[in-house]
Every structure is written in C-alpha cells, then in structure tokens.
C-alpha cells in the first residue's frame, strides 16, 4: 500500500534564495501529520506545491503512488475531488453565503438534485458545529472562528479522505482553538480522515498530531510526536524546549 501522500526531493527556489533543498515527506493513511517550521521556512509554499498551485524546481509529489505532474487534466480534476483544503484566511468566496460556499465543490463535481444539495450542505454546516442560521450568512458577517469552521465545512463538502489545513487555529482564542481541535479529532476519528496540517500552535500539535514534520534548513525531519521532542536539532529543541512545550510533553506522553 503506497503512502497517501509522498513528497520526495522537492527543491524550491525564489531567485537566488533556496527554500526547499531536497525535502522529503510521507503521510500514511489515517494519521494527523503536523508540519511546523519557522516563519519563511516554506510551509505554505510546500502546501502550494503539494496542491499543484506551484511547480517545484525539482522533485515529485505522489498521491497514492501517482505522480501529480504526470496526471492528465481529467485525472487531476478527479484528484481534486478526493482531498479538501482550508486556507489560512479561510478563503471563503465572499459573494456567496456559507451554504453556497459549501455547495461550490459539490456543484463542480457532483450531479445532484437541489434538495439533496441543500441538505448535504446543511449537514456539513452542522457537522462542523456551526449554528444553522450561519448557513445563510455571508463570510463578512462571520467571526474568525466561524470562518475557520465554514472553511472546514467547505473542505469536507465532497467527503474527502485527505484533508489539508493551513494554520487552522491561528488567530483564534485558546478556547475556540481547543474547540476546533476537538472537532478535528472527532471528525478525524469518525470519518477516518488523513490530515496534513500546517500549524504554529503548540497546543494544537500536542492535542491532535500523531506525527510531526519539521522544516529546517530546507529539509524535513519527521518523527512521532514523542520522538520529535527528543530530536537534538537546535531549532527543534528551541521550539519544543520552551516552558509551555515541556509542560505539554510531560502531560501527553506519546500522544
């Protein structure tokens, strides 16, 4: 069984600056894989590369063993129906209500009656814990936490088995962030999702991730949560060595 997602030898350059220098990453089915790294380490660029929004200067991205860049247009279209993405700022379509936002992927990929479309969209809205009256609201009328949830609802529109989340809890208060993590754990368990998550939030990492990949020096060091904390790399030590992190690590043991 090939890995759900396998990234190998990715090289990304912006002019003379090399962001990724032979980066490898493997995500197995059913795990929650956290991607961390300093600001400017190329986390979001990596996500854009995986999603095919940016062609790497070298290296391959494989979904279930198939090379992203070898796929035909039709295969690529089908692949896009098989994963969901949330972007940092939500990237909800501002001209559409939440319900319509959730329906966008459905309208593109499914042929359904209008009633079914509406019901399925509302099911997803409920599933992410939004109140029902949020379904008819527009993104500009939502709070930050609700936008993150609405974005998750849209990402789940086609019931993907693979989910990419770009900083899902950034900008939320600790209570909302914790609630979002709970929701994610619940969905991940119930729907058997594979999740790739970029995050800065230590709490989120310790609560949700089963494995963590750290981007340092243009490469990725990945390990289980318990393992990564003990990694001697100075950046990783600085990241996990803080007061808050030590306290967490002691409490969760191996996650």
């Amino acid at each position: 069984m090939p890995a759900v997602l396998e990234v190998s030898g990715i090289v990304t350059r912006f002019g003379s600056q090399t962001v990724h220098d032979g980066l490898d990453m493997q995500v197995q089915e059913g795990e929650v894989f956290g991607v961390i790294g300093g600001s400017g380490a190329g986390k979001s660029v990596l996500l854009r590369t995986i999603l095919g929004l940016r062609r790497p200067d070298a290296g391959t991205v494989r979904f279930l063993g198939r090379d992203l860049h070898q796929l035909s247009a039709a295969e690529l279209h089908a692949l896009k129906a098989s994963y969901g993405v949330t972007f940092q700022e939500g990237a909800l379509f501002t001209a559409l209500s939440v319900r319509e936002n959730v329906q966008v992927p459905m309208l593109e990929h499914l042929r359904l009656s209008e009633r079914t479309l509406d019901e399925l969209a509302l099911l997803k809205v409920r599933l992410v814990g939004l109140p029902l009256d949020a379904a008819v609201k527009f993104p500009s009328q939502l709070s930050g936490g609700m936008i993150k949830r609405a974005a998750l609802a849209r990402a789940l529109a086609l019931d993907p088995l693979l989910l990419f989340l770009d900083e899902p809890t950034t900008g939320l208060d600790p209570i909302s962030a914790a609630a979002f993590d709970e929701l994610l754990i619940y969905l991940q368990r119930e729907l058997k999702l594979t999740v790739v998550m970029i995050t800065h939030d230590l709490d989120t990492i310790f609560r949700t991730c089963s494995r963590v990949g750290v981007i340092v020096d243009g490469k990725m060091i990945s390990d289980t949560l318990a393992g990564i904390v003990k990694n001697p790399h100075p950046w990783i030590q600085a990241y996990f060595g803080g007061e808050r992190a030590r306290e967490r690590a002691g409490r969760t043991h191996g996650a």
Partner: protein
Amino acid sequence: MFITARRNAEELNLELLGEWRATQSAAIEAELKAIDFSGARSARVAAGSAHLDLSGAWLLHDFLDRARKAGLNPRFDGAAPTALTLVERTYSGEIPAHPGGTEWLDPEQAVESIGRRAVRGWRSAVAGLEFVGRVCLALLRALGSFRRLRPTAVARHIYDTGITAIPIVSLVGFLISVILAYMGAQELSKFGADIFVVDLVTVGVLRELGVLLTAIIVAGRSGSAFAAEIGAMQLNEEIDALYATGIDPIEALVVPRVLALLIALPLLTIAADLVGLVGGGLLCHSLLDMSMLQYLNRAQSAIAATTFWTGLVKAPVFAGLIAITGCACGMRVRGSSRELGRLTTLAVVVSIFSVIVADALFAVLFMKLDI
C-alpha cells in the same frame, strides 16, 4: 449497483453494496428513487460490506426517512453503518429558510420597495454630498502644508491617470476630427461651403468634443481604477488600518487622486485638442485640397479668443466629478468581491453620466453668457 431490493411477501429486503461515496451520489440517488414501496409493510436493511461516507450516509438517511413516512419500519440486520449514526447524531434542528426571494406580485410590497428605494436614493445622495464636503475640507487642510499634499502620491497618480493615457486620448482626438471633417465635407460641399469644415472641426474639437471625450476615456480608465483600488483596500481592511494609525484616509487616498486628476485632465484635454487640430488640418488637406496655410488662416478667424478656454475650463470640473465619484464608490465597498465589482461599474456609469450632465449645464450657461 449500490442497493438491491427483493420482495418477500410484505417485507422489503434491501441490501447495500459497494462504495457509497460523494462522487457517486447522483447514481445512488437515482437508484434509491427507483425503489418501489407499494404493498410493502416492513423493510429489512443489510449493510453488508458496503462502505458509506457522509454524503452516502445522508442519502441513506433520507431514503429511510421516506420509507418511514410510507409506513415501513426499516430495521437493520446487525449494526447500522457508523457514518449513518454520525449523520443522525448531527441531524437535529430546523432547516433555515432560503434567504431572499421577494414576492414581486404583492402590491403592498411593491409600494414598500419603491419607498425603500426612494429613501435609499435620498440617503446615498446625502452621503455623496457629505463625501464631497469631507474631500473639500481635507483638501483645505492639506493645502496648509506641502508635505500633507503628499506630492509623491500625487505624482504617481498623475503618471497613472495622465501620462499613460496620452496615446489613447490622442488617438481619440485624431479620430474625432476625422469624423467631423468627413461629415462636414459631405454636407457642406453641397452648399459650396467647404471652407466651413475648418470651423466645424476646430470649434467642435476645442469647445466640446476634445474635453468631453477625454473626460469619458479618463472616467473609464481612472474612475474605475480609483474605485477598484480603494475598494480592494476597503476589503482588506487597509482603510481601517489607516484610521487606526491616525491617518485620514480621505486625506491620504482621495485628496491625492482628486488633485492628480485636476492636473492631468486639463493637460490631456490640451493634448487631445492639439492632435484634433492637426488631424483636422491633414483631413482638410487631403479631402478638400486645402493648403495648410489656408487651414491655419481659416482656423484663426473661426476660433474666437474664448473658444479654447470655454473647452478647457470644463476639464477641472469633469476631473473633480470623476475622481470624487470613483473614490466615493470605492469607499462604499463592504464585505464581498461582488460588491467591489458592482461599485466599480457604478463608478464608471455615474462619472460618465455626471460628466455629460455637467457638459449640458455648461452649454446652457455659455449660451446665457453669450460666449
């Protein structure tokens, strides 16, 4: 095949098969719809090895609901699929009504909507006037010091709205004189009054068409650009950031644009006039075999001392209308990208309209003043 139905006396035996995925939901929906309940009293469902995702589970949930309403009491052989349990756990509460959907046929509502429109129209007129006032105040305040006039921003906007518009404005000026000369030559030669083509072209271009068409082009180019720029900043909360920093967005964004256009539009008008006159000369030369010297002589006597200035004096007025309309529309953008598009369109329509209205008023005014 996703479901098979076998009838066993009054019992309906259903068996779920395969992968009930979202991507298959259209096919699943069709199969479920085809199942006939008539005559059945009860139903047994075997989930078997079928795998359901959430969309599939909802379709099943909806189907079972229908079966229940038809008097069947569907039971599962063994456990229900986990996804179905999840759907049922999630499922509670009322479905919100569709938003919008006005009843147009209701006379009461029709009257109400006319009233609403009138009130909204009045309010937006007042808001527009208020905006003009705020721009004027900010302009006055900024006039106090050179730095607050933001010369770099003004220069940038003069470049964007003026210098880069020179080619298109010149081309239009030339084409207008071509049109006037052709039309004039055709009609006036019937009376042997060929020489008056010169009057038509020079007076037409200088008094009216040069400035009017320049203003319309600038409204299309820069009015829309102002609205879109400021509108995008509004969406991105940059305007709020300016407020929060203690910078008046009117002073920082609107005043430089208004000033720049006040400078650029008269200069563009002069360019259009110039090219128009040269074009008129070329056309008279080629159409009517008039020598350039003759054209210049005739033009000299056709143009009164005021002809050029009556055209040019309108340019700053048009510039003010275009710049303020564009900026005001941009400032009104709220919330969505659709709003941005709507207000950018509105900026162009309103600024062209107001330019033409102002031009008509000028025509009346100049006639009364006998210029």
